[in-house]
């Protein structure tokens, strides 16, 4: 298993606020292999962005704190790194692309200079070399007239262009891991298609691993090798893209898949929403967090959080329906029983 790049174990992150402790991430375990794309899927507030930001140590501490868990990156535990040590990792080995390209670029700095920053710091390039490489990066991400764009400020770029610039910054130092936090949510579909295609191309060229954080199942279907479904701070199901889309086992995953209309299907079926809202993370339920919204919930679901059930070497689920005493429920996606 030495092709594992990132190995996150039992990561637990809380925020201490005036109103109490928000348990944003409550023990997530996952890994990312070299060159693969892992998608973390979930709704707002499920802890997917906090997980990503914790890996990068971008969580302000306090109020945030890592209560327990490890983040092994190439065998070293990032959770124990000091700020100084992290500086050498951030932007070099691990980079991040954010959702909103408008607010994550520095508006007072030329785009070219923002790409050069990391190169000068991490690759110890001189200015001339860094400039050359920066222009090369702009060309790589499909920017027409990169020499001219190098000298421009972010406000002179459109949304798609800004996201390209962010990708150029993120990939300038050839990172081993790229964390993309909702990279296309702020973009239009045609631009989204351009950006996703670009990320896939660059991944092939540079063999970067990608963690893609999103709520858009369409984007996930297009690019993900493996998927982790997160709900209320825990991963409730994980498997290959094929397993999650074609043989999902958790009622929440069923709900997600059933609640989005599909463009390629003709008939007008009524959407099946998931009733209710996600639980409050000030006081998360002691049992399965989805129990309150789950139509299959049993008594035990509200009492004890279900253990992990391994369905095969890549696919696991946390759900009491897997237990041999549980009633046989028809899977609404596959139409089969357990």
């Amino acid at each position, binding site marked *: 298993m030495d092709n594992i790049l990132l190995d996150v174990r039992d990561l637990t992150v809380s925020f201490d606020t005036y109103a109490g402790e928000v348990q944003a991430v409550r023990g997530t375990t996952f890994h990312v292999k070299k060159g693969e794309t892992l998608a973390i899927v979930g709704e707002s507030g499920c802890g997917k962005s906090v997980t990503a930001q914790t890996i990068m140590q971008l969580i302000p501490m306090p109020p945030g704190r890592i209560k327990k868990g490890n983040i092994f990156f190439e065998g070293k535990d990032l959770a124990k790194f000091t700020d100084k040590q992290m500086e050498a990792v951030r932007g070099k080995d691990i980079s991040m692309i954010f959702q909103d390209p408008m607010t994550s670029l520095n508006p007072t700095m030329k785009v070219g200079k923002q790409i050069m920053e990391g190169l000068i710091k991490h690759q110890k390039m001189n200015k001339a070399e860094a400039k050359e490489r920066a222009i090369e990066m702009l060309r790589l991400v499909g920017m027409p007239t990169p020499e001219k764009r190098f000298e421009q400020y972010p406000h002179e770029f459109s*949304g798609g*262009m800004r996201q390209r610039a962010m990708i150029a910054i993120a990939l300038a130092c050839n990172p081993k891991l790229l964390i993309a936090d909702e990279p296309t949510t702020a973009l*239009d579909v045609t631009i989204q298609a*351009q950006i*996703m295609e670009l990320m896939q191309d660059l991944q092939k060229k540079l063999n970067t691993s990608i963690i893609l954080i999103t709520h858009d199942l369409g984007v996930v279907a297009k690019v993900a090798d493996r998927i982790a479904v997160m709900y209320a701070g825990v991963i409730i199901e994980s498997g290959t893209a094929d397993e999650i889309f*074609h043989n999902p086992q958790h009622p929440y995953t069923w709900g997600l898949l059933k*609640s989005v209309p599909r463009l390629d299907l003709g008939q007008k079926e*009524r*959407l099946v929403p998931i009733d209710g*809202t996600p639980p409050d993370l000030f006081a998360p339920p002691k049992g399965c967090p989805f129990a309150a919204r789950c139509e299959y919930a049993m008594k035990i679901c509200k009492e004890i959080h279900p253990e992990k059930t391994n369905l095969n070497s890549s696919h696991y689920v946390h759900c009491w329906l897997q237990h041999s005493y549980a009633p046989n429920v028809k899977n609404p996606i596959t139409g089969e029983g357990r």
Partner: protein
Amino acid sequence: MEERKTLIEVRNLKKHFNVGRGLTLKAVDGISFTIKEGETLGLVGESGCGKSTAGRTIIGLYDLTDGEIIFDGMDVSRLSKQEKRQFTRSAQMIFQDPYASLNPRMTVTDIIGEGIDIHGLYKGEERQKRIYNLLELVGLRREHANRYPHEFSGGQRQRIGIARALAVEPKFIVCDEPISALDVSIQAQVVNLLEDLQDEFGLTYLFIAHDLSMVKHISDRIAVMYLGAIVELAESNELYEKPLHPYTQALLSAVPIPDPAVEKGRKRIMLEGDVPSPINPPPGCKFQGRCKMAQDICRQKTPELVEVTEGHFVACHLVK
């Protein structure tokens, strides 16, 4: 469906903004369509294409620059004060951002009751009863009536927005991206609610959104906008099965399908570049700069929206 009467007719609607230095931003530049009673027309397009401006102009939040809006037989831009009041009661709007569109200093009762008071529909106890009814209708509870917007989640706020629109018993509702700020599992709740209300009260919707899968789901017919103009308009299944305009084709191919097996086999029509600025746009077809098939005529003459097959309109010189 053919016998239904036309509720709203938009003829060559234009909305231009003066942006200073003698420049004009042509947000909506001559669009025409009709919506029948009880029908949902979807209006799709990318950001900046003018779809929201069109919705806001139709409802009267902007004064139109040119063109006509005929609602229930009346020309909306030439109404007397009395008729205007009648119109604002018949036509309502649901906004995109449930956080920004509710006054944080008003209780839910005040928010929903405001329209009822302005139009003098109910008083005293009846008014309170009506508000309770509306809350239950949109899936909220009576206890919610005296709370403030900040006490609700995004989905619940959007329900308050819907209750406010319904309070004055409208015939027509402009839904301007009503679900884009909501989570996936909540979107389906709100869409189902909108569909139920339409069935119950025979409402007519103009549903503006950029999520093409959802628009296809909810709409009877769909109009595709690009840079202030409608480039294609058809019955929704027809549009998805036989898109004729090169822009519609590219737009549809860019929408990812939530199924990896289907996604792997799909070919995308990639569009180069971005949507050009609507300030002083070049003559000819608005899409020609990004269209791979563009010819000389596309650069010289603006294509008209013509009916190619029954009910399927397209504005392209190359579609015969």
